């Protein structure tokens, strides 16, 4: 860091008392931290992309505790940052109160809907993307068993699992999807050892492809899958490069795009509800040089076909969170 940023920091510290407006955007990362190789990092990449392209500057903060959510939001809003982007659904409660107090500030929350006139709620149709990778898994597996390792046991993760199972069963209706969650506490997002153990257990039960939607825990899943010689599927960011030749694809969730878009729009951020799905490139299956050899033409064809049908509405993937149940398992 240069002297200049130090100076800017000092200026910001002064600004908080003087209340001068800075029209820079800001982003608040969730407890996982911005280099989690997954969700937060995707958000960080979006912000960085914006900074590089526009030459602008933005402020970011990683939280230490839950009590800081509202505090950070409020402090940023008070100091005139606009818009303020929150990476993660956990900010919802804090945002509900803060948004009211700062009607002139625009907020964007990812993965959650907060109903306020100055809030942009960005959610992803993870079930659609998961459906696609489920199809890929069905084609890649010789037998009829695949598996899923989730992070913390919350509806959002069941949404991934349910979409995945639906996609798989669309190809192999009699097949079996083993679903395991790592835990019920936030530490389940960062337990690669347990992720590896679950994967090993699933392999013992016949799984040939494992889909990890588990943050840092997923790194252990991918590693174990590579070690044990089965295929894995990454999540959020494109994780194909992590274990080249073993990661079948990644269910990318373009959180970076969501952040980038919000930053681009700046103070004039369009508020309201935005669903990012297959149709608007919000989710998808990552294809690159690392997994090219694993994608067979017929697999690709089936995935393209499903993409088209979902966009057209011909196929509707059930969203677990709509009724907290899943028809596929």
């Amino acid at each position, binding site marked *: *860091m240069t002297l200049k940023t130090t100076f800017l920091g000092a200026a910001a*510290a002064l600004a908080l008392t003087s209340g001068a407006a800075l029209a820079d955007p800001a982003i608040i990362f969730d407890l996982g931290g911005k280099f989690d190789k997954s969700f937060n990092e995707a958000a960080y990449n979006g912000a960085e992309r914006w900074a590089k392209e526009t030459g602008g500057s933005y402020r970011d903060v990683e939280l*230490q505790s839950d*009590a800081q959510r509202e505090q950070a939001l409020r*402090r940023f809003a008070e100091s005139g940052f606009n818009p303020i982007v929150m990476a993660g659904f956990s900010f919802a*409660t804090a945002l509900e109160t803060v948004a009211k107090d700062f009607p002139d500030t625009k907020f964007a929350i990812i993965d959650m809907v907060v109903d306020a006139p100055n809030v942009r709620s960005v959610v992803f149709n993870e079930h659609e993307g998961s459906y696609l990778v489920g199809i890929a898994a069905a084609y890649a597996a010789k037998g009829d068993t695949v598996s899923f390792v989730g992070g913390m046991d919350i509806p959002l993760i069941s949404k991934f699992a349910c979409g995945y199972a639906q996609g798989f069963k669309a190809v192999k209706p009699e097949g079996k999807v083993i679903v395991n969650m790592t835990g019920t506490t936030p530490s389940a997002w960062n337990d690669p050892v347990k992720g590896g153990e679950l994967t090993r257990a699933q392999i013992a039960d016949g799984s040939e492809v494992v889909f990890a939607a588990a943050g840092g825990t997923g790194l252990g899943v991918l590693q174990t899958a590579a070690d044990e010689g089965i295929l894995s599927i990454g999540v959020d960011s494109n994780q194909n490069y992590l274990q080249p030749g073993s990661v079948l694809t990644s269910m990318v969730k373009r959180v970076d795009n969501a952040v980038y878009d919000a930053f681009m729009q700046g103070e004039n951020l369009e508020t309201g509800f935005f669903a990012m799905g297959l149709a608007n490139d919000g989710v998808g299956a990552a294809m690159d040089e690392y997994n090219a050899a694993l994608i067979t033409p017929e697999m690709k064809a089936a995935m393209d076909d499903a993409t088209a049908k979902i966009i057209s509405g011909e196929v509707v993937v059930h969203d677990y969170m709509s009724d907290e149940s899943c028809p596929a398992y």
Partner: protein
Amino acid sequence: MNKMPKWADAVLIPLISILLAFFFSGLVIWAIGKDPVVAIKTMVQGAFGSTSGISYTLYYATNFIFTGLAVAVAYHARLFNIGGEGQAMLGGLGVTLVCLAIPWPHWTLALPAAMIGGALFGAGWAFIPAWLQAKRGSHIVITTIMFNYIGAALLGYLLTKVLKVKGSMLTESARFPEGAHLPNFSEIFAPIGINFSPNAPANMAFFVALLCTFAFWILIWKTRLGYEIRAYGQSETAAKYAGIAPARIVIIAMLISGALAGLMAINNVMGEAERLIDNAVEGAGFIGIAVALMGRNHPIGILLASILFGFLYQGGAELSFWESIPRELVVVIQALVIMFTGALDNMVRMPLEKLFVALNRKKEA
């Protein structure tokens, strides 16, 4: 042998330790290319420079007072209660169940009920390790640590499966009714003309904590039970000789300890979040150990140490908000303070004692 005057032990040593900690923290900040002076200023300004800052500082301090007292009660009976974290978690559950049980008409009714709920659940969670220690000799350090994990798992289960609002992705309970809202500092002080930031979390629980601090002092130094707790803590064989039943003291001291830890929930759960969230305790149970250690297990010391740690939390947050100092570094600074004030006590004490001995001799000569 009186090596050092009491004031030096109580004031000078912690002060020098804190200064040392800040000196080394400054070095760390300087090493990553930031200005330590600006950083310290940001921390102090952020923690004490505004009513909002003060409110956050005291909010954190309230948590630490409860857990610090909890650790100290057990420590007087020479029991190392590492389970403050789990007991505070369960206290949160107790408070939540009470607050959600009926639509409370007013906080003056809700608070006493919630206190009972929090204290009972916290004490209950401490009872099992206490019983195992008293009757089966299972080491309390091990059992209380394990009970932290069990508590976290139990709460995780309840929050995801039972208490969670249907359809919500948040692992948290429903919001408490309006009548269970504890007045915050802004509401408390407005009638007497002091304007506190309306959006900061310090609340009525702070005064409950002060009350508990006073009650702690009475209990330990003025009552028969406190006498027996201290006697047992100093020497189990002597306690037996005096007819003090060790098992009884172990269990009672741990129940009080757990109740105090559980009471913390009226601050973080009832006062701040107004709902039960996952991992609501956020390490306050462990900070309580450092607080008790630094406060020499004395209520005044615990109060001061709690405010210091409140400052570190709030100042640390400001540091990461405004100085782009990574949060890991904020943790490093907090750890340095704990290390210097708690663990490295003797490093400061020894030279200081020598200094005083030398001074005394000069005076005599």
